[in-house]
């Protein structure tokens, strides 16, 4: 009988994946939202089926739309998530989403210090606005707070702009200062799934790696060969 069993934590180390999803009214056009819902659900299923990983992958989804940011999916092991589709309406209050993401990442009771570096994924199809729907810079300060905070700053960040109206400046600002540099993924509604496959492969590789905090090189052009969904 083990003499040391009682002294070790009975849960696996966590690798969090936090998605900041734009659910403003414009996401309802051209099937963008339904495509995004499918892609996230597929990613969660893939993570849930992962075997032999070093870390248990947890997923949370923060939506921003309507009149603010909302924790649509609380941080849970992928294997326990019953995905509920997001709905879209209203404005693009990105600043509120950054604030909520920072709160979540800095909460040591939610994400213990023994966790691996989190993954933060931003998806948007437009320009950030205030809660009244006016184009606004009020996202810049919350983003700086996120990028400068002790724990949130350690997150590996990915960004996807959907369609021609997605604001390049915002997405680039979200990715600034990472090594190696990760480009903004620009796409239309038909390639949303491809972006999430890229994120999936990267997170999956990290969760198996002997050094999970390093970023594995991923060839964006050969994703179909890497994944067999």
């Amino acid at each position, binding site marked *: 009988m083990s003499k040391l069993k009682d002294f070790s934590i009975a849960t*696996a180390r966590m690798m969090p994946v936090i998605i900041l999803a734009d659910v403003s009214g414009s996401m309802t056009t051209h099937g963008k939202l339904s495509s995004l819902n499918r892609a996230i659900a597929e990613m969660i299923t893939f993570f849930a089926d992962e075997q032999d990983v070093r870390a248990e992958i947890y997923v949370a989804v923060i939506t921003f739309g309507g009149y603010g940011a909302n924790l649509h999916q609380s941080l849970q092991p992928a294997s326990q998530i019953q995905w509920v589709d997001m709905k879209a309406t209203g404005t693009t209050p990105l600043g509120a989403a950054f604030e909520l993401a920072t709160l979540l990442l800095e909460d040591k009771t939610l994400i213990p210090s*023994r966790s*691996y570096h989190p993954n933060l994924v931003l998806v948007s199809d437009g320009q950030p606005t205030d809660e009244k729907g006016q184009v606004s810079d009020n996202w810049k300060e919350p983003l700086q707070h996120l990028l400068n905070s002790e724990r949130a700053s*350690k997150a590996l960040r990915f960004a996807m702009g959907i369609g021609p109206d997605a604001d390049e400046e915002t997405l680039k600002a979200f990715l600034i200062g990472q090594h190696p540099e990760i480009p903004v993924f620009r796409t239309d509604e038909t390639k949303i799934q491809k972006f999430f496959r890229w994120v999936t492969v990267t997170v999956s590789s990290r969760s198996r790696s*002997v*050094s999970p905090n390093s970023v594995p090189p991923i060839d964006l052009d050969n994703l179909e060969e890497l994944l067999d969904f």
Partner: protein
Amino acid sequence: MLTSSQPGLAWFGASVRGRSHVRQNRPNEDAWMGMSGAFGTAIVVSDGMGSKPNARIGAQMACRAVRDSLKPWAKSGEAPSLTLLRLVHLFWGLRVLPNKEEDSAATCLFATVLSSGELTIAQLGDGIAAIRNADGSLEILQGERLGFTNQTTGLGIAKTTKDWTVITKPALSFDAAVLLATDGIADDLVGDRIGDFIHTLVTDFGSMAPLDRRKALHQELRHWATPNHLDDKTLAVLWRKQPEDEIK
């Protein structure tokens, strides 16, 4: 149990290859060492950084570098602990040659009781270095981690001695024990049970015959209770017993 030439001091350690390295047919990239001599007594653990090609040698050389450094440092008598750390960097850099230091990066945690009785504990990088005092109180060298796991420094990464955490005490008191462990163990320990963990190691494993203890500890570490544990696991314990005549 290995006893020191110093009254009441004893130490042991153990290291096992993690499941990840077993599956990949890679060696254990942790190392540990216990030593006693004219300088005093010491234990060392080191975790070679998994992403580095020469990690295993880096960890083994960290243990030897501490041994190399303790002899001249102890001889000098009055030299500060900073000098000891500089010597560790110097000897480690020489020992990993011809490999590059950055390819051999490894954490380094050690505890030594000099022949004068003075205790020094030092830590560079992830892992745990802790003292359980005779009254059950616990001192952990590095406080609560601010960020996340695996964001470590080590020999081959740290450019100055400022990244080390060091404490010195006039003595290791009777019935006190020092634990050193790599992050394969440290990150999975229940926070409020670390003192009990050290006490169990000393009382249950410290009293075993060396071969029995090695077998029992390897069994425990290979069957670590935390799910998905894949890392190499290494620990070393140094403690001071009450002299038997005083117990009687």
